[in-house]
């Protein structure tokens, strides 16, 4: 859904072939959104739903999404589950190792704001957005695979709206 018609392409048919005209920005955004490899961060029961979404019935592959076990190959970090303080440092390290552009999807109540562990809990971080910036939040405990798919589509929508002049915002001023 929406994969082909959102690609900002203009195809002119000429005999023996075709010419594709697009903007550099549109091509960049289209290519980024169409192969959104994710770093799987299964921390709790949300990971089961993420696995179900990645498997054949719901199938992340049709959005061009594959799991990567290395942060250096990943574009999207899916935080699926309860983030403890002990894990928070590791998440921050892995987020810093991801190459720009990078996106974060917080799945489930625990990753959004602590969820059932909000009160009277010494070990759980109250939302993963305390340590890394989050692009899309998915509520639910745990969310169904349909919700996760919609969250992935929201990340794609966000990527399609990006402008080239904003890309430079990720580079520290000392390197520009």
């Amino acid at each position, binding site marked *: 859904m929406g994969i082909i018609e959102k690609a900002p392409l203009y195809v002119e048919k000429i005999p023996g072939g075709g010419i594709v005209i697009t903007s550099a920005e549109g091509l960049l955004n289209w290519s980024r959104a169409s192969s959104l490899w994710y770093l799987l961060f299964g921390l709790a029961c949300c990971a089961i739903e993420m696995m179900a979404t990645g498997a054949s019935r719901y199938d992340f592959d049709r959005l061009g999404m594959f799991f990567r076990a290395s942060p250096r190959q990943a574009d999207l970090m899916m935080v699926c589950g309860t983030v403890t*303080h002990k894990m928070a440092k590791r998440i921050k390290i892995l987020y810093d190792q991801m190459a720009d552009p990078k996106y974060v999807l917080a799945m489930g109540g625990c990753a959004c704001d602590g969820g059932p562990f909000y*009160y009277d809990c010494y*070990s759980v971080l*109250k939302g993963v957005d305390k340590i890394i910036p989050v692009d899309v939040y998915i509520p639910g405990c745990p969310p169904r695979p349909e919700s996760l798919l919609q969250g992935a589509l929201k990340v794609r929508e966000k990527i399609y709206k990006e402008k080239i002049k904003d890309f430079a915002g990720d580079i520290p001023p000392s390197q520009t």
Partner: protein
Amino acid sequence: MNKDQIETRLATEFGSAVEILKTRFPEPMIYVATDKYIEICRFLRDDPYLAFEFLFSMAGVHYPDRFEVVIHLSSSKHIHQLVVKAKLPPENPKIPTLSGIWEAANWYEREAAELFGIVFEGHPDPRPLLLYDDWNYGYPMRKGWTGPDFIPMPDKSKGADE
């Protein structure tokens, strides 16, 4: 052995050092005196009629006036279980380690020591187990503990119910 037989055997063997609790649970539940803790536990493992060779759970409890250590024992030979409790004072709770009797007690005691501040004397490896490395906020499972990023449950009896 059934519940009555286990209780009778412990009562005849140790007398007043064992206090038997009346509960509705199928397994017997006893309080043991802290000074006879090791002796009783070794008896529980080595006695051929009891033969509790497996410690499958151990916990610390914080009551308003005391600490408690609760251990759950089972015997795969006789298919029976037992709950053993020991009372500890609220200041400087100390108890001998069980890791020489049941190897499984090693990590349970490390956990209880870290979360409740109970000192297990003679423990072979008293390092912290679960909390992160630079933790210095005390013992989080004690009542009234507060720390960073800790939000206590609001008291619903004081109005503002949903």
